[in-house]
C-alpha cells in the first residue's frame, strides 16, 4: 500500500502536470495570476518557457488556450472554478466546446471549502455549467493518487476536459501503487446492499468515513466514487439502484445541476429509485473556516451517516 498522504488535490494537480511535462512535450500551462493558489506555480518553476501567465483575464486565457490547441499544444488553463467555468463559460462553450478543442480547463478552489473568501469565490455551479456543454468531460478526483491519474488521463484524452480541484487538504484513501483510472468509470469503494451512497470529489473520503461508521452499527452502505461526472457511469449507478433500492448522492456543489441531478435523471428514466441529494441546497455560501463550513452545510461524515440512517428509516 502506497503511503497515505494528506494533500489538497490542487497540490496533487500541480505536481502531476509538472511530472508529466517531460513525457508530454505538447503540454503547456496557462494561469490568470493565481499560480500560487492553483499550484500551477510548481510547473512554472520547472518549465518557465512552457508557462503562460495571462494576467487577470480569464476569458482571454480560455481563447489563448483554444488557439494553442489548434496548433497541437495541450494547454491546461487554470483559475478558480468560479472564473474558469463561471466567468469564462461562454468562451469555454464557443471557443473550446463547439470546435471540440483539446483544451484542459482547470477549476481550482471549487465548492464552499474555499472557506474564508466567502460566496463570491465559492463556486457551486461549475459542474452544472460544464455538464451542459456537449462533449465536455468532467473530472472531479477525490484524492492525491486519483488526481495524479486523472491528469495523465486528461492529457491522453483528445478533447475538452474540465478538471475540478479542491483547496482543502484531504487524506488519500486510494492505493497509489495499483490505482487505475478510466475516464467514465465509477469505482465501488465499499460493498453493501442496504443503500448506496454516490459521492464525488472531496465528499468521497467523508462518505467512506460515514460508511465505515455505519458498518459498525450493522448498516452496510455501498460507496461509489464518481470521479467522472460526465460522461456519467450509468451502469454502476443502475446496478446499485437495482441491488440496494435506495441512493444518496453527495457533492460539494449546488444540488441543482450537479452529480445529484445527473444521477436523478438516470434513475428516473431507467430505474426509478428513492433518492436523497446531499449538497449545497440552492443557497450561496458565506465566510468561515472551510471545515466548519462543510459541517454547517452538512457535508461531513457525521451528517452523511445521519442522512443515510434517516433514509433507511432508522
Amino acid at each position: 500500500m502506497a503511503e497515505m498522504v494528506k494533500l489538497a488535490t490542487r497540490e496533487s494537480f500541480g505536481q502531476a502536470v509538472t511530472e508529466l511535462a517531460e513525457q508530454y512535450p505538447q503540454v503547456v500551462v496557462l494561469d490568470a495570476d493565481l499560480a500560487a493558489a492553483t499550484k500551477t506555480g510548481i510547473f512554472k518553476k520547472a518549465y518557465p518557457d512552457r508557462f503562460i501567465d495571462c494576467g487577470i483575464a480569464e476569458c482571454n486565457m480560455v481563447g489563448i488556450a483554444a488557439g494553442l490547441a489548434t496548433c497541437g499544444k495541450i494547454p491546461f488553463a487554470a483559475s478558480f472554478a468560479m472564473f474558469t467555468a463561471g466567468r469564462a463559460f461562454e468562451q469555454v462553450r464557443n471557443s473550446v466546446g463547439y470546435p471540440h478543442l483539446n483544451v484542459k480547463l482547470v477549476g481550482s478552489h471549487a465548492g464552499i471549502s474555499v472557506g474564508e473568501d466567502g460566496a463570491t469565490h465559492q463556486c457551486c455551479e461549475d459542474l452544472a455549467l460544464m455538464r451542459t456543454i456537449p462533449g465536455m468531460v468532467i473530472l472531479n478526483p477525490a484524492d492525491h493518487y486519483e488526481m495524479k491519474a486523472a491528469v495523465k488521463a486528461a492529457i491522453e484524452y483528445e478533447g475538452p476536459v474540465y478538471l475540478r480541484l479542491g483547496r482543502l487538504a484531504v487524506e488519500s484513501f486510494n492505493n497509489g501503487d495499483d490505482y487505475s483510472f478510466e475516464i467514465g468509470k465509477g469505482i465501488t469503494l465499499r460493498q453493501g446492499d442496504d443503500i448506496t451512497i454516490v459521492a464525488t470529489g472531496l465528499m468521497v473520503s467523508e462518505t467512506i468515513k460515514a460508511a465505515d461508521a455505519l458498518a459498525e452499527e450493522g448498516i452496510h452502505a455501498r460507496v461509489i466514487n464518481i470521479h467522472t461526472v460526465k460522461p456519467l457511469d450509468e451502469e454502476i449507478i443502475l446496478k446499485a439502484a437495482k441491488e440496494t433500492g435506495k441512493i444518496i448522492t453527495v457533492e460539494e456543489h449546488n444540488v441543482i445541476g450537479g452529480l445529484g441531478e445527473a444521477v436523478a435523471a438516470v434513475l428516473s428514466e431507467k430505474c426509478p429509485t428513492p433518492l436523497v441529494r446531499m449538497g449545497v441546497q440552492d443557497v450561496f455560501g458565506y465566510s468561515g473556516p472551510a471545515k466548519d463550513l462543510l459541517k454547517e452545510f452538512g457535508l461531513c461524515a457525521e451528517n452523511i451517516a445521519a442522512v443515510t440512517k434517516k433514509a433507511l428509516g432508522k
Partner: protein
Amino acid sequence: MNSCEKKSLQLTACKVRMNVIEGVYHAKSGHPGGSLSAADIYTYLYFRELRVNPEKPQDPDRDRFVLSKGHTCPGLYGVLAEKGYFSREEMKGLRHIGSMLQGHPNMQDTPGVDMSSGSLGQGISAACGMALAAKLDQKDFRVYTLLGDGELEEGQVWEAAMFAGHKKLDNLCVIVDNNGLQIDGPISEVGGPEPIDEKFRAFGFDVQMVDGHDFEALEAAFAHAKAVEGKPSVIIAKTVKGKGVSFMENQVGWHGTAPNAEQYETAMAELKQALAGLEAE
C-alpha cells in the same frame, strides 16, 4: 503590384461579392453588409498575403486566419470558394441544414476555416494563442485576424490586445474592418469605440490606417506589418459597409438582412456589370 495583378485582385473581389449575395440570398438570412465591406481585405489576404494551400488545409506550417467578426463569414466562404477550398455551388447551401457552411464559421465543418468564431471578441484571443504557439515552437507562420469596429466594444478584445502587446506577438496582424456601422447605428453613437488607433497604440501595437478598398494601400500596409519587430500590428482599414452593391452601401439596415428576389437580381446585375467593366479594361 503591377496593374495586371491589381486587376486580378479586383476581379476576384467582385466574384467574392457575388458569392456573398448568392449565399445570403439563398439562405434568406445572413450578413451582407460587413461581408461586402471586407471583401477586398479577404481577397487580398487569400490571394496575396497568406501562405496557404487549399490542397493542404491542415498544414501545420501554414499562416492562420481567424475571422473574429464571424458573422461576416459569407465573405470568408466566398473567398475560400474562389481559392479552391470548396465549390462555389456550396454558397447556395449557406445556413441550410446539412451544409458545410454554417451561419457562423465552424472549423470542424468547413475546409480552410482555422477557428470557430462568431461570438464577438473571442477570435482575437484564439489568434493570439496561435501566434504564441508559433513563438513557442519557433515556427515562422503568421496569424491574421479580422475584427469589426463594433466588435471593439467587447472587453475581451482589449484583454487580448493587452496580451498581444505584452507578449510582443510580432507575428500577429490584427485588421479592423472600420466601416463605421453596427446593428443599432453608427459606432460613434452606439458604443463609441473610437479613437481606435490611439487605443491600439496604448496597448503596444504598431498602428496603420488605410483605405480598405485600395489594394496598393493594403499591400503596403501588410508589407509594413510583416516587417515590424517586437510588437503586434493592427491595420485599421477604412471601408464602406455594403461596398459594391449601390443600394447596400453605407446602409445600416443591410447589416443582417438578405435581399429579396428583386434586390438579388439588381445586386447581381451591378456586380456582373462591374466584372464585365474590369474584364473589358
